[in-house]
C-alpha cells in the first residue's frame, strides 16, 4: 500500500486539479464516506449533453482526493450519459496500481459522487457493481 503514494498521486493530492466551485452548475452532488468522514462535492457544467466543465471540493485522504482530482480531468468533454455509466475501472486506471480492500471506498468516493450528479440521484458504490 505504501507504493500507492507515488509522485503524481501526491501531486494531485497537494495540487488538486479543477478544485473549487462553478458559478451556475447544471448538475451537482455531494456525499461522504461515513466510515472515515471523507467528503466530496462535484459540480458539472453540462451543455448539449456534454460535460464542458467540472469542479470538485472536499476533504479527506490522499487516495480520495487524488482519485477525485484525476477523475475530473478524465471526464471533461465526456457525454453525461457516458459519465453516468462509468465503472470503477476508470479510477483504477487513473491510479494505476492496486488498492487494498480497506481503502477501496476512499478511491471510489469521487466517482460515486460524479455518477450521482450525472443521474440525479444517489448512485451505488462503483466497486460493488
Amino acid at each position, binding site marked *: *500500500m*505504501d507504493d*500507492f*503514494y507515488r*509522485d503524481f498521486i501526491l501531486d494531485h493530492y497537494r495540487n488538486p486539479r479543477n478544485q473549487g466551485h462553478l458559478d451556475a452548475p447544471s448538475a451537482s452532488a455531494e456525499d461522504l464516506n461515513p466510515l*472515515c*468522514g471523507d467528503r466530496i462535492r462535484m459540480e458539472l457544467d453540462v451543455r448539449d449533453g456534454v460535460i464542458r466543465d467540472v469542479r470538485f471540493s472536499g476533504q479527506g*485522504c490522499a487516495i480520495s482526493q487524488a482519485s477525485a482530482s484525476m477523475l475530473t480531468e478524465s471526464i471533461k468533454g465526456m457525454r453525461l450519459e457516458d459519465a453516468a455509466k462509468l465503472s470503477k475501472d476508470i479510477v483504477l486506471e487513473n491510479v494505476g496500481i492496486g488498492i*487494498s480492500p*480497506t481503502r477501496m471506498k476512499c478511491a471510489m468516493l469521487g466517482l460515486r459522487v460524479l455518477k450521482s450528479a450525472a443521474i440525479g440521484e444517489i448512485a451505488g458504490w462503483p466497486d460493488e457493481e
Partner: protein
Amino acid sequence: MIAFDEQTAQRVIADFPILARPTSRGKRLVYLDSAATSQKPNAVIDALDTYYREYNANIHRGVYEIAARATDEFEAARAKVARFINAQPQEIIWTRNATEAINLVAYSWGAHNLHAGDVILTTEIEHHSNLVPWQVLAERTGATLRFIPVDGRGELILDDIDRLLEGVKLLAITHVSNTLGTITPLERILPKARAAGATILVDGAQGAPHLPVDVRALDVDFYAFSGHKMLAPTGIGVLYGKRALLEAMPPFLAGGDMIRKVGYERTSFNDLPWKFEAGTSNIADAIGFGVAVEYLEALGMDWVRAHERDLLSYAFERLAPLEARGLAIYGPKDPARSSGVISFNFADIHAHDMASILDTEGICIRAGHHCTMPLMDKMGWSATARASFYVYNTAADVDALVEGLEKAARVFKL
C-alpha cells in the same frame, strides 16, 4: 530516562499469542489500537475453550452436573467483576457492552425518571455511546441536554460547573476520553453533582481497563464498561448500578430468566441482577470476563496505570523532535492527566493514509473520528490518527511507531 518494568512486560507479552504471530509481510505485530479493543491472553482464550469442551450447558435451573458447573462459573465471574470495582454481585448486570449498559439506564431508569423540562448534563468529549442514547431519551421525554465544554487541549472547563449543574437530573460523563485520553476530573465534578441532587452515570469503557476503579469511593449511581477493551471477549459488558436504584427500576428486556412467576396475564420479576438479564446470557464470554479481571488483578491496576504512564512519558519524549516537522499531538500532553492514548496528525498526511503506511510495517493504529464526531467538529479536525497502549505494549512499540512516522514522512516526501 524512564524506568520500565521490562521483566513484567516481557512476561505479559508471552501471555498474548497473537503478539507472536507476524503479519503477512513478515513484520512483528505492533498493536497500538487497544482503545478500540484489547488483545486476549491465553488464560481468557483457554477459559472459553474449556467451557465449550468440558461443561457447555445452560445456566440456572439445570440439575445435572455440567449445568451446575456452568452456573457456578457464570456467577463466580460476576463476583470477580464486582470485586474488581468494589461492588456487590447483585449490582453487576451483564450486558453486551458499555453501549448496551448505557441504553439500559436510558430506557429503564430514564423513561421513568426523566420528564419534560428535566436536564441531562453531559460533556463535549463523549463517545457517541454516551451521547446518542441521551439525545434519543431527550427527544422522547422532552428533557434537554446541556454540555460541560472542552478546551483546546482536550480538558473539561469547570469554571461554570456550579451553574451547569443547577437543576440537573442526570449527569452522564465519561471516565476517560477515547479520542484524547483525557482523564476527566471526576473527583471534582461528582461531589458537586451529588450535592446538586443529580443521578450520576459514568461511562467507564476507557476507565475500567486502565485505571483502578472503586465505584463506592467514586459514589457513582451507574458505571458502564465493556469486557473486550480489558482482555475479555467481545459481546460481554457490565452495568454497575446501586442496588436501591436497580431495585426501583423496571426491567429493560422481557422474557425468560428475568421472571419469578409468569401467568397468561401477569408476571412478577426476578431478583437482582437477573431481573435485567432476559434470555440466555452470554455464558462463555462472562466466564472469560471473570478470568480477564483476575489477570488484571494479578498484575495490579496500579501497575497497569504506572506502565501506561511510563509508556506515555516515553512516547511524548520520542515524538517531541517530530513536532518541528509538523507532528501535532492533541489532548493533554501530561501523562498524569491522560490514559494511554495519543491522538495526532503529521503535517499534511491524512490520518487514513498514515494508518495505511503504518500497516505496511505491522503497526495497528486507528484513524478517523473515533465515534466522537461533535468533538472533532468543535476542534476543527476532520480526522486524527490514534495510537493507544495497554499492558502488553513496551518501549519497543513506541520506537516502532516513531520509525513508522519517519517512513510516512519519506513516503509523503515531507
